């Protein structure tokens, strides 16, 4: 099952490598990762999404994360009420005649077109996992050329 874990860390070089190393050493792939400064510039916030093949191993990773000197707190959001959002940038095949069709899709989502070219459009959208999945489903009808995802952010 997928876990969303947030890690509050000291904003220092090498911290990301320490955190990532705990996953890679156990053969765990990080599905998504978002890192940035917090209100306190000495502290960074990481949101990590990982597929746990074995819950016991993930529990061990969480304990090991807590042991890192530079880690301040670790929260596994999976079984907690929380909000999560992801930003996606999608470049699709687009011709002007399809404008209404695209607009009617985007109305259902928090999304907008940020650039038009002759035969492409770039769409920016924000949503939780289900919303992003639904949007990408709809956009696939146009033909997706490029897809960029920020990785999930989670907050309680």
């Amino acid at each position, binding site marked *: 099952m997928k876990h969303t874990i947030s890690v509050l860390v000291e904003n220092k*070089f090498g911290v990301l490598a*320490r955190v990532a190393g705990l996953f890679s*050493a156990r053969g765990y792939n990080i599905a998504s990762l978002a890192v940035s400064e917090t209100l306190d510039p000495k502290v960074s916030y990481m949101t990590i999404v990982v597929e746990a093949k074995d819950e016991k191993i993930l529990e061990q990773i969480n*304990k090991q994360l807590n*042991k890192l*000197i530079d880690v*301040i707190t670790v929260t596994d959001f999976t079984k907690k009420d929380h909000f999560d959002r992801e930003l996606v940038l999608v470049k699709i095949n687009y011709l002007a005649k399809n404008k209404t069709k695209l607009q009617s899709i985007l109305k259902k989502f928090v999304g907008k077109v940020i650039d038009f070219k002759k035969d492409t459009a770039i769409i920016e959208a924000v949503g939780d996992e289900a919303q992003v999945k639904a949007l990408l489903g709809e956009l696939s009808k146009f033909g997706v050329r490029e897809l960029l995802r920020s990785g999930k952010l989670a907050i309680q």
Partner: protein
Amino acid sequence: MKMTGSQILLECLKLEGVEVVFGYPGGQILPTFDALYGYKGFKFILTRHEQGAAHAADGYARVTGKVGVCLATSGPGATNLVTGIANAYMDSIPMVAITGQVPTALIGNDAFQEADITGITRPITKHNYLVKDIKDLAQIVREAFYIASTGRPGPVLIDLPKDIQVAETEFIWPAEVKLRSYNPNLFGHPGQIKRAAKLIMKAKKPILYIGGGVITSGATKELLVLAQRLKCPVTWTLMGIGGFPAAHKQSLGMLGMHGTAYANHSIMESDLIIALGARFDDRVTGRLDLFAPEAQVIHVDIDPSSISKNVHVDLPIVGDLKQVLGQLLQELKCGPMIEDWLKHVEDLKKKYPMGFKDKDKILPQYVIQQIDAVTKGEAIICTEVGQHQMWAAQWFNYSSPRSFISSGGLGTMGFGFPAAIGAKLGKPEKIVFDVAGDGSIQMNIQELGTCVANKINVKVAILNNGYLGMVRQWQELFYGSRYSHTPISSPDFVKLAESYGAVGILVTKKSEVKPALERAIATDNTVLIDFRVEEEENVFPMVPAGEAINNIIGGLA
């Protein structure tokens, strides 16, 4: 006053109470060695290999409980420390390793003798630092010692670029260390202590299972009081040796793969395992799903990640063992009624006694017993890794903590001899033996030079059977006696010792064992004793890897 980075480093080490540093010079650590020239703040021991320096620092830490310190140059000097750092990490030994690094401007440029040692050692250190500003240096050294020696101890590495060593700044010794994200929990949760006491009083077949944490936290006195109050049997891991007196009537000796049969049967039949500073290593539990099926588990450990890692724990207590045992003793004024259990354990002891069948040739077990006899059980015994290590664990009656120095977790051949050097410097008043095999002694034999040059008086007892014995034993038992590359030749150890300026003794007869040991102890020099022992003697009892630990082969019964 303005000081250079190198001077600040030495001053910090002195202020941390460092008595001895083990190391080896090289290009990128030259400024620090220049500062060491004529320096009187602590002793510096030049080893013959950086790995020797790391193991010596480790051995020093194990016998004293203080932080061991080693120092090497960048690149190969730093990578040669790696095995020693990993070894200390696996056994939770406080160590600070300092490495030179290429100047900050060259880092990442594949400069001569450059290695990303903080990257390399990230998974085998408790923490590590690359110093990028001289103003941080004193604070970093202070933090390194604090982190290495508190909580679950471990090695910390400081990588010090050459330009930082020569840069100058005002030296300010930080008054204290505060790390917002690192505050080891010392006292156990009072509610958990109460629940543990209740669980203990309800137990019918309790057993105390102790590990290295008892020694690390200095909790042997509290453990003895607890054990005597509960009257229950006590068994220990390899790392727990010396945590409880082997000669005590409640002792079951070591458990696990080469543990006593009665310890293994007892823990398998127990209904309550009280695990103290131990981590249910696979060499202890054997096949996990069959391990102690009826037992509930109380687990006291300073490291939350050790709890429920391998074995499900019913009652975890996170804290320092000495404090937690103190709390537990407040709650437990007496023990449970377990007379039937104690009688059963006594029966197990009689049914499965420890022993070995005498032979004409010198038996390795006999040599260990004789070392015990001639030193009255008071020696510090260091070991390498292999059969001799297990015999040293089984056949010497350890009575005090920090007297058995062995590579438990990593299983590092070549550890024992340099560790013995560190041990002798840490406890000069003690007789220090390295019990070695003919294979492992050859892994760091060059440290004979260190011993002789610094008049470090250690005794090396080589149990020479012409084989890499433990691997040969597995080949005999599980690979149809196909001795693939386990017969190993050795130099003439007597001549080798003499060429270094040490003393060598060859022992080929049983009757010569005791006199040779007595002569070695009376000699004011490093002595290498080459005991030619029975070639194909096996370590028994033995639990085959991956089997339940009551599935025991060998032994007398």
